[in-house]
């Protein structure tokens, strides 16, 4: 990709070959020097995963004696135990259903609301925007009791629908704002053009807006997935039956009241995090798809 940009650089035709080579060398050198701090940062971001994995393969005495050392005699016991005690098979399935449901719902709701708030002008727009944005600030800890009463009153206790709706409601502010800010950078002429072509606003939304919004939508989907998957309090409140709980609740209950079996916890964390890592690796290419398309075009 870098070479593409270089060959297309407007400087190229006017420069003498030697200068060009020197300039190119300098630019490349600069780029490669940048890689050093980035590499260090990347090392720190990946290290904890290695650390956790390393701990997960340790026996408990091994963990107490040599925390940071590389595990010499790895054991799979922790994974087996975590799988059993954290009821992983069942909980992974529950997490998958509630997270997938919420993320799909969120993608639809936030795209629609974000499009309206970012691209259309209507009366009360700022009020709606403010209303949705400040909802971000309400910590669940404090509204737990009225929220729980609401769930009970709506008969949503122990229901996947209840959990999905709650996940959605708690992530709408972030997702909508994200989509709105993205759409507001898109030229409004697009709307006018579609209108002239005779498309209804709904058709425009489906055929033009959604595809353009793909990078933001992918971002929204990834972040919502993480937020729902890692949420502890909502499933704790809403799912009050053992078989309905989610993976993060299962992991949280593995901690003892006083002492905690760290290798066991590390194994559970790895098992519970793997699905979201996969989701991210699959979705992340969508985020930059617009970008690669742009650079090829450029």
């Amino acid at each position, binding site marked *: *990709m*870098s070479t593409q940009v270089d060959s297309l650089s407007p*400087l190229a035709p006017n420069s003498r070959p030697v200068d060009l080579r020197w300039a190119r060398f300098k630019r490349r050198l600069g780029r490669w020097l940048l890689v050093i701090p980035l590499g260090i940062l990347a090392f720190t971001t990946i290290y*904890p995963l290695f650390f956790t994995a390393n701990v997960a393969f340790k026996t408990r005495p091994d963990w107490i004696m040599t925390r940071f050392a590389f595990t010499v005699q790895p054991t799979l016991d922790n994974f087996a135990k975590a799988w059993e005690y954290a009821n992983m098979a069942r909980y992974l399935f529950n997490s998958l259903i509630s997270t997938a449901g919420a993320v799909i719902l969120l993608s639809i*709701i936030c795209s629609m609301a974000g499009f309206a708030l970012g691209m259309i002008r209507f009366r009360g727009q700022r009020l709606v925007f403010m209303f949705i944005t400040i909802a971000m600030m309400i910590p669940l800890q404090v509204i737990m009791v009225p929220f729980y009463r609401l769930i009970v009153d709506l008969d949503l206790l122990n229901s996947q629908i209840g959990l999905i709706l709650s996940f959605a409601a708690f992530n709408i502010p972030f997702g909508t704002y994200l989509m709105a800010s993205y759409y507001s950078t898109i030229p409004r002429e697009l709307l006018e053009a579609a209108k002239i072509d005779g498309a209804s606003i709904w058709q425009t939304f489906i055929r033009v807006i959604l595809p353009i919004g793909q990078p933001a939508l992918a971002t929204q989907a*990834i972040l919502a997935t993480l937020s729902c998957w890692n949420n502890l309090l909502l499933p704790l409140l809403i799912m009050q039956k053992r078989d309905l709980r989610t993976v993060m609740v299962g992991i949280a209950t593995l901690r003892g009241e006083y002492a905690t079996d760290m290798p066991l916890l590390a194994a559970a964390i790895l098992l519970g995090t793997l699905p979201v890592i996969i989701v991210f690796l699959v979705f992340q290419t969508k985020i930059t798809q617009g970008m690669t398309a742009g650079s090829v075009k450029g």
Partner: protein
Amino acid sequence: MQTQFPGLPAARKPLRTWLRMQQREPEKLWAYLFVAPAVLLVLLFRFYPMLTGIGYSFTNWDGINPPQFIGLANFQELFFKDLLFRTSLINLFKILLTLPLWIFLPLVLALLIHQGVPGWRFFRAAFFFPTVLSAAIIAAIFTMVLRIDGAVNLFLGLVGIEGPDWLGTTQTSLPALIAVALWGQFGVGVVVYLAGLATVEQDLFDAAKVDGANWGQTLWYVTVPSIQPTVEFYTVTTIRNLLAGLFAFVFVLTAGGPGASSTLPEYIIWLNMGSENRLGYASAISTILFVVFLLIVLVQVRLMGLRQGGDK
């Protein structure tokens, strides 16, 4: 097609305006339909419980017995008597001073990835890894990494520096906490900015290059303005995160200590709810945080209004 609606009495003016609007500007009507699901869900699951929560802040509720109205007593105690709360506000202020770092670090990284620094695909994935882990898990890992005999000090030892007990001194606990939280958060910024950058025409960057702009100038004069809404979005959500999204880090990394050196308002909320049974008092703290955030959003909406006005 200016149809009249003879069946409607003249007094029902709003409805008439509405129906007329439907004919003239259908997109505006669609806009209401488009925001409706979001507004309804937020109204039901967020605002309705929150109003009750704000109501509690004027009571002495203990979570077990019925609440009694005590007026502004909670707020009086918070502002005039509670030394711990005062310390936590100072700590919060110190954290807010680091805001530029939170905003610009991911922006710079996103831009480097966007411009295709060697290995950008790898960095794009690597920088996001911390975000995959929940805050509590990140904090648990860093509790070990930052111990006096932890990995950070091991590495520092290699270059001959004797590192402090990062989480265990009043001078280093808050900076260490900020660093860990930033580490856990910046990946979100990178991804958000990358999505925002996808809308920017590559020509803009090329043009800046032709004009001889250096990297910093390009960042400030080309990148930031062209994705301004995204930057604003990320700023607002980051402020929200700093005001009330660091609980897990405080709870696991330092438990607010040593002393109160890393105590934040949301940690005091938890202490009052989870251990001291003062739910009314906890609600009062969260009401204060809510009002602070409301003011910030007001400023942001004003900014947005200016920008939209300027577009015309």
